């Protein structure tokens, strides 16, 4: 699904230089190098979490590169009558800006957006990743987490960018603290005749009837608490396979000349072993099953490095946005 078309000779030229020893890439990187990644969180003030991420912005011009904007919006959803799910749900959608793909027709653009949405939604909306603090009222109300991503510019490796932006936006997301309000009818002092009809509480009865009917915001100033399971949101590495080698972070031209790409989304929980959350093979090329295992192992290594780098940057952003901003305000 290359988004630009190249002539056969160009493709062959790029492939040949990638497989030569030493390999040669258009921008002088080695095979496993990433382009510089820029990231800023909190760019959409009205969203509950947001990020702008750029891969490969040219240092001279301040432009170019793959650019993705991600924003998380939390909405109260009704479980009984609305489309909410008890305990909350995550919905991802990706839309591609026509400016990012000027040569595509609007139908093709829709198809492309749909493909990306499918990959992200299937991975991130999976029940195994659902944060535990999206519930508001058991069986009645819950938060619907809507993660919307826009591809503003594409110069290759858009899936890595999308997953990274998604992870950063979810990291930034604060869930407003809600308090459950309930009404429990008090049994009056008078003993009533119908007391015998009251069901005896029994250990066998596992139903949990909640009397909660509504919720309130105890501290409306507060942005809220972070999403639970922050560390589990996956990052993705794309292994671009030009047999016998593979390389990372392809540019558009490289992507167009690569017959096969392997997408690996990996999650690195703090206390558990890394897990593979999703994998996709894209492109017309072929790969032998025996190779896959080695590729996945390599992928895990690269993803781990990416994860650690992203983690460090996110923590730094947090400090910049809160502590440093406050200090600057006081010293102004």
């Amino acid at each position, binding site marked *: 699904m290359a988004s630009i078309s190249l002539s056969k000779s160009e493709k062959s030229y790029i492939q040949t230089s990638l497989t030569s020893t030493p390999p040669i890439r258009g921008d002088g990187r080695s095979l496993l190098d990433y382009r510089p990644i820029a990231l800023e969180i*909190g*760019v959409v*003030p*009205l*969203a*509950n979490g947001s990020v702008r991420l750029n891969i490969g912005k040219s240092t001279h011009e301040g432009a170019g590169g793959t650019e993705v904007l991600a924003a998380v919006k*939390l*909405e*109260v959803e*009704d479980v009984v009558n609305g489309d909410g799910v008890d305990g909350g749900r995550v919905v991802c959608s990706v839309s591609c800006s026509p400016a990012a793909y000027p040569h595509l027709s609007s139908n093709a653009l829709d198809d492309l957006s749909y493909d990306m949405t499918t990959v992200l939604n299937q991975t991130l909306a999976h029940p195994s990743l659902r944060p535990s603090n999206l519930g508001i009222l058991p069986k009645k*109300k819950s938060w619907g987490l809507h993660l919307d991503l826009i591809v503003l510019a594409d110069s290759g490796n858009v899936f890595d960018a999308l997953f990274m932006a998604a992870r950063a936006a979810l990291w930034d997301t604060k869930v*407003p603290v809600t*308090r459950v*309000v*309930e*009404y*429990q*009818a*008090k049994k*009056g002092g*008078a003993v*009533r005749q119908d007391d015998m009809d009251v069901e005896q509480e029994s250990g066998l009865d596992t139903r949990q009837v909640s009397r*909660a*009917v*509504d919720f*309130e*915001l105890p*501290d*409306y*100033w507060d*942005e*809220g608490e972070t999403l639970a399971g922050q560390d589990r949101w996956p990052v993705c590495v794309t292994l671009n396979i030009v047999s016998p080698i593979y390389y990372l972070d392809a540019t558009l031209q490289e992507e167009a000349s690569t017959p096969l790409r392997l997408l690996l989304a990996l999650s690195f929980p703090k206390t558990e072993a890394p897990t593979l959350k999703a994998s996709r093979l894209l492109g017309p090329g072929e790969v032998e099953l025996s190779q896959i295992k080695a590729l996945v192992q390599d992928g895990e290594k690269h993803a781990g490095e990416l994860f650690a780098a992203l983690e460090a940057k996110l923590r730094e952003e947090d400090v*910049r*946005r*809160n502590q440093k*901003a*406050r200090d*600057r*305000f006081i010293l*102004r």
Partner: protein
Amino acid sequence: MVDITIKKRSQTDAVVTQRKFFKKTARGKVIKVLRERYLRDDVPCGIQDCQACQGPGMLPSAGESAHPSFSTGHFVLPDTNVFLSQMDLMESNLFSPPTILLQTVLDEVRHRSLPLYNRLKALAKADDKRIWIFYNEYRSETAIIREEGETPNDRNDRGIRKATSWYQSHLPRGRSASPSHQPKVVLLTDDAANRRKAEAEGLAASSVRRYVEGMKDATQLLDVLVSVGDDAIEPTRAVAARSALYSEYLPTATVLAGVKSGQLHQGHFNANAYNYLEGSVNVPAFAKPILLVGRENMNRAVNGDVVAVEVFDETEWKAPADEVIDQESTLKNDDAEDSEEEGEGEEVLGQEKKALRSDEKARPPSEKQPTGRVVGIIKRNWRAYVCHIDTASLSTTLPTSLSQQTVFATPVSRLLPRIRLRTRQAPQLLAQKILVTIDRWPATARYPEGHFVRALGRAESKDAEQESLLLEFDVPYRPFGRAILACLPVEGEGWVVPPKSAAAPEWRDREDLRGLTICSIDPPGCQDIDDALHARQLPNGNIEAGVHIADVSHFVLPDNPMDSEAAARGTTVYLVDKRIDMLPSLLGTNLCSLRPHVERLAFSVIWELSPDAEIVNVRFTKSVIASKAAFTYDEAQLRKDDVHMRDELTQSIRLLNSLAIKLKAGRMAAGALNLASPEVKIHLDSSESSDPIEVEQKELRETNSLVEEFMLLANISVAKKIQDTFPQTAVLRRHLPPPRTNFEKLQDILKKRKGMTLDVSSSGALAASLDKCIDPKEPAFNTLVRIMATRCMLSAEYFCSGSVSRDTFGHYGLATPIYTHFTSPIRRYADVLAHRQLAASIAHAPLHPSLHSKSHVERVLDVVNRRHRMAQMAGRASVEFYVGLALKARGEREQGLVQEEAFVIRTFRNGLNVFVFKLGIEGLVMFKREIKFDVDNYTVTIPAELTGKSDATIAVFDKVTVNIEIEKDKNTQRGKVKMTLAKPVDSRNL
């Protein structure tokens, strides 16, 4: 040129400069709201001659040096809680140190209590106060941001302290005085922790009590202080040991949840005027109101509070008591100082239990009402109440002492409980009417605790009574402020309609109707003439009739101070000897009033009517008229009836009259009700003394109905027009059909006592059956039934046409599908709105945007509806007061006994409720001895052994003769009408 510096930040600073918060909407969604904050260096401090700010100032530069603790001068900077709990102190005119009001405080007050916020805003504008609002959140030096983990409260407290310290350091910059003579900025707060922190930062801080104690008017001001916090009035010793008298309220959140889930019911608490141990709450879930029996179940609700009620099982439902239980007589022995002690309490409770006993089995199940108890208060509607000090509660050992003592204040209204308050001025306040507010009602106290606000004057003096009446019904009566008077035409009294010319703005789109023979017909002494009429024969045999209404909307422009004031007042209030105007009197009684022989601006409705009074055509126009005469109803009647008079004016009146008769007949045929209310007229001897007075029933003449019919016609025509043009926001008036259950009791009484039936299936059927309720021996009987039927109905209300469904627009009493008020814009605000909408619908003037907004119109009409109701009650109370005075005067003239005929309208286990026709008053006849009471037949029987004669049975609708006395309650100095039976039996000894 003033330099404006706005510091604009880059995106990265957003965290600091944007204030984000979440809001939960009524539908349960959560919205994130973002506010951008721009910080400035030129927010002025408000101190006069401040060199640094050079802004406008209203605080004296040296501060206030009268307070002994701060002899070098000081400014007061109160925190939020001071305004939340001590608003009466801040409003007192004895308390006027230069005050700095922070924006943080203002915002917090608004968030906590809207009524208090409105009072605070009014206070900040008051002329006799020196209050400066300092926008500390927008001044770059005083702005703060919330720290990680800081509660909103702590953040605000920190902001207040920061502003205090800024002021303190700002002061020297604007002046040259030496530092030792610097005025201080005193942080006024009752929060001890906050005070400690402030003192640690080197700021002056004081609690409210300590501050007030140092003032020279401390004695009077300390009474105004609300008793809160630890340093408040000493608690009664027994408090700690005693168990709670009432159950605690559920937490607010729980209550709201209960209401939402339908397990609790929310409604206004209505106390019962006849029985202080009973109250009711109207809720949509039940046809009948929920009954609350006994103190514990009423659980500290005060009349008017919005409460949450839990309904008991149906087996525990009760019928309302059929007995009159008077708080004063039952609780006579309750002592204010010791009322909390065990022993006394038991005795009182025993008495109350006795009072509450009722043989439930005797009551038919149909009378049972849903019964429940109050479990929470959703909104307190406490205000200042007019009270008397109960003499008996004064400590006997120190009757004239100035030391602080606890006394009972008895509210004038029978619907309210006694209020305990502590005062040093008790002896002076004895014979006075005083204003008292309730501060709190703890679960351990039988009575609410309150504090003294101010004295209104000697009881029964006219001024005190009048003011207390206005306060009691919440009528705004202050004179119009400067900003409002500035909206009047500059010519003042000298304003005239300019000569007709195309250039004059007054003449734009106005018809010249000065040539028409127009006259006005009003009650005698009417100064605000809002309507005038004319009629003339047209060549085609039809009749042209016109109603001309004062063009108030020409003078009262939307959204200026005068308009807002009029909207807030809602209506002019008529008391017997005073009128509280909605508009400044220059407009009401002069410029807008359609006086005779002068040119006035009018809004005219002109019909072409067929001789049978069918509308052929109607048009609306702004006009200039010159009324030819102003008649009273009597004069117009005489003129019409005098066959020798043949002038144009008289012809016009006759023509109008003939049409009115047909209009009325048409209306009656459509099912309009002929309602009655007990209206009496008070004759004042002279306007100054107004002492000896006479009461007379109002008489209605043909000309009354003439004016009424044409006003109705005008209102209906206008209502149709504005509803067509503005279907979403038209200002209309409706009268909902009463629920059938309201009539059940009256129907039953009529059937059992008189064998008459009342058909309430429609207004027409009701009108017809009311016409049949005639007792040939007793002409007044029909009126009595009409009065009682009227009481069963709902009251008419203004509404916004877009807010209710189309099929509920109808006016039940008038039997018209649509109605509005258009004809009295001088004295009703709804009419002003209707005028504006009509002017827009004939393309005379564009409609102000606010009248396109449904929510705005709804809000305004809510206020107007409330004011309207209050104004009616105030008027009635004023009449009652004068009837009382008249009775007293008559009693003195007639040596004691005043006897009048009265009808029995209700029977109780121990008394009768009677209605005295001639005086238009209701009264209670109580029996102290046992009598027989027949609930089903509405009779009481006074046994022979009590009177020495034969058994006397008295039933509802019976005519009796009563002795009427004005008795002064020994304890409260409250004048009270006391009635005893004179015929058929003398009940004075019973």
